[in-house]
């Protein structure tokens, strides 16, 4: 206290008028929607999801305009093609049959044969998808040869792969392979056969890289070029390009995914919109009218909720029937609306009953507000948040339902693509061509994920109780 006496002069103790009786808050004041938007923007996951949803909308709406490939067109020469870069083919002469190479058989004993390995296994001419021509030196004592082809290196397990030829003539020491040749790497193995036709001794293997070739006439037939005369021998032509590969019928995956998105997202967005609207009308009617009518309406809603959802989706689907040439999208929408409205109706009714009791409604009424004003100014803005969140969460549920029904063959009718029906078709070739299942599955998962995270973000952002927390 003594130090303070030195520090302050008498002037310091003069009374002052404090005009700022109410302190200003250092926090900025924000409105409900501003605050919700701020919190949504802070939620990184929700923001990324929002961008994914926008990207999906672009993919669906603008995609087919930019990537003009008919999703129903079949390219039977490129069936179950994995995704990759554009493919080219070399223009060559049309196929000319090959006589093969013969050599005089060399005699030998069973003992030497049992220890023998075919020598000199070689390519006679460059390997193409037209033909692979191999030759080797005769093995002493061989009664014939056995050939195998594999897409993997047979070493070290001795897995020689698919048997492609049995040569019974010991003079024949060449082989021409024309069986389903793909422009890839093959391993050909050859065994000598003993007099009983069994494989004798060890095998020899040659690695062969094939080039994709086509004759000008073939290319024209396939529609790869306009006219056979337009190309010369040795020209490279670019094949129809499928960036994400093709399905088991040779249809373009990318294009099908885009058109499938139209079906899946159309159902996924339109069905929730429809049943949420039905639910709002039904629920607010029950909430506003109240009394007996409310009881009756809500009891009916309870019954509809008790119907096993997916079973009745199937039943309605059968009941509506799908005529030839119809996609079955409309019956699915109707069935979804018929079964899914009660959840929203219950929610809206609860909100209406709750808000009706709020103090600000009473205050507004005291100030002479009319019903239309109350509904427009108080009811709708205060239920908007909840309804928006319900809508966002309904989208993934419906997309799942569509996928599930299409998977068990009760969804949209082929050939209309949807992500669900594409997954169903992809499942059959899952082991050999996994991309046919994985692409639609990824699209379903990413869409559902984005809508779920967006819904989470919206719910957190719109929840008034979350204000000031975190």
């Amino acid at each position: 206290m003594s130090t303070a006496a030195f520090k302050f002069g008498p002037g310091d103790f003069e009374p002052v008028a404090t005009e700022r009786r109410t302190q200003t808050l250092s926090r900025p004041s924000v409105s409900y929607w501003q605050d919700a938007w701020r919190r949504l923007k802070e939620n990184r996951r929700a923001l990324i999801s929002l961008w994914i949803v926008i990207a999906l909308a672009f993919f669906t709406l603008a995609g087919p305009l930019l990537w003009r490939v008919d999703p129903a067109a079949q390219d039977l020469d490129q069936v179950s093609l994995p995704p990759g870069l554009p493919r080219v083919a070399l223009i060559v002469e049309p196929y000319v049959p090959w006589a093969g190479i013969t050599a005089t058989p060399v005699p030998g004993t069973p003992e030497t044969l049992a220890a023998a390995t075919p020598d000199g296994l070689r390519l006679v001419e460059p390997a193409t998808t037209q033909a692979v021509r191999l030759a080797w030196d005769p093995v002493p004592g061989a009664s014939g040869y056995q050939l195998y082809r594999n897409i993997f290196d047979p070493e070290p397990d001795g897995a020689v792969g698919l048997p492609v030829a049995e040569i019974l003539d010991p003079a024949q020491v060449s082989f021409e392979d024309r069986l389903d040749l793909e422009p890839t790497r093959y391993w050909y193995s050859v065994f000598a056969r003993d007099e009983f036709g069994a494989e004798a001794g060890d095998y020899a293997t040659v690695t062969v890289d094939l080039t994709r070739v086509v004759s000008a006439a073939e290319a024209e037939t396939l529609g790869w070029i306009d006219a056979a005369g337009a190309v010369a021998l040795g020209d490279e032509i670019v094949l129809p390009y499928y960036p994400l590969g093709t399905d088991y019928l040779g249809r373009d995956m990318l294009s099908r995914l885009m058109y499938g998105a139209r079906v899946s997202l159309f159902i996924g967005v339109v069905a929730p919109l429809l049943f949420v609207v039905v639910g709002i009308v039904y629920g607010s009617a029950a909430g506003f009218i109240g009394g007996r009518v409310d009881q009756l309406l809500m009891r009916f809603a309870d019954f509809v909720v008790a119907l096993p959802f997916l079973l009745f989706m199937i039943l309605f689907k059968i009941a509506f029937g799908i005529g030839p040439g119809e996609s079955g999208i409309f019956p699915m929408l109707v069935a979804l609306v018929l079964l899914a409205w009660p959840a929203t109706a219950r929610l809206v009714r609860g909100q209406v009953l709750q808000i009706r009791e709020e103090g600000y409604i009473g205050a507004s009424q005291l100030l002479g507000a009319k019903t239309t004003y109350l509904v427009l100014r108080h009811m709708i803005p205060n239920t908007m948040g909840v309804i928006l969140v319900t809508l966002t969460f309904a989208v993934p549920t419906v997309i799942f339902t569509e996928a599930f029904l299409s998977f068990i063959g009760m969804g949209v009718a082929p050939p209309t693509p949807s992500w669900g029906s594409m997954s169903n078709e992809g499942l059959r070739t899952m082991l050999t061509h996994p991309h046919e299942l994985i692409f639609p599955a990824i699209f379903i998962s990413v869409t559902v994920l984005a809508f779920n995270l967006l819904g989470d973000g919206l719910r957190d952002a719109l929840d008034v109780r979350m204000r000031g927390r975190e």
Partner: protein
Amino acid sequence: MSVGEVPGGRTARRHDEPALLAVDDLHVEFDTYGGVVKAVRGVSFSVRPGKTLAIVGESGCGKSVTVQSIMGLIPMPPGRITRGTAMLDGIDVIRQKVVDGEDIRGSRIGMIFQDPMSSMNPTMTVGDQIAETLEVHRGYTRKQAYSRAVELLGMTHIPEPADRAKQYPFAFSGGMLQRAIIAMAIACEPDILIADEPTTALDVTIQAQILDLLDELQATTGMAIVLITHNLGVVARLADDVAVMYAGQIVEKGSAEELFHECAHPYTLGLRAAMPGNDPTREQGLQAIEGTPPDMFDPPRGCAYFARCPHAMRLCEENRPERFEVAPHHYSSCWLQHPAAPLEVSGLYRGAAA
């Protein structure tokens, strides 16, 4: 305990008595999206054995945070105790909750809360919840603990305690539940009972019953009570000592009589003027304290009460008031108590220093 009973004796005795619980320079902060809230800014007080200390202040002044941080009940994060100690028998309970394998909470310090309805586990019977404390701290068997729980319910004047013990909290009324919670808090005969606004959520008639019960229990068990309240009526009824808090700091501290009759801080003065009473000599009606407490995101540099103080002086805005001992053990943090302060304020006690 009524006001003005033995004014001199109480003050004299206080010099000899060691504090049961001594809180020194407590600072608590909270991280929020808007910044750091400095909720408690250097609070010191002591609790005398068998006596009642009331901590008084407006909502949000930091009184609940003070006791909850002593009890380790503030969520961390976002909460943070940055400085300060609370010594109980030579142990800093802020840093050490378990002594000799036993938690001091529940055994040496009991606590009751504002809203009895939400303060009990809805899925356990009331009897089990009381017995639980005894099982944990006293090592009672389930049966022993339960029969003691029934006795405790009887002690807090709950009718038919044996039947009530079997019931779940939702079957109790607010007042009854607060009694049960008191029974739970005193089950292990603690030295200190912290009551955080114990009557705020209750009807006025029930409030009086609960206060009587606390008074009665203090007389029989000899425990000290720390009473958090914003109700000066409750303070007048129960408190021996009072600490007045404003914006995270204690602005005035002293005995109840001193605070009511010789109050030495304009804020206490304002609180008193805002309190309803039946004093016929009072000329004016209730007077509200104009304005709102400062924003704790950015507490003022000088006196926190400056903006609302009718007697503010030039130095108050920038200089934090020192603590002046206006009478033995009666402190006020206000520049008006400075010897150089020229003002004579009506109703304000000017201490020895002035």
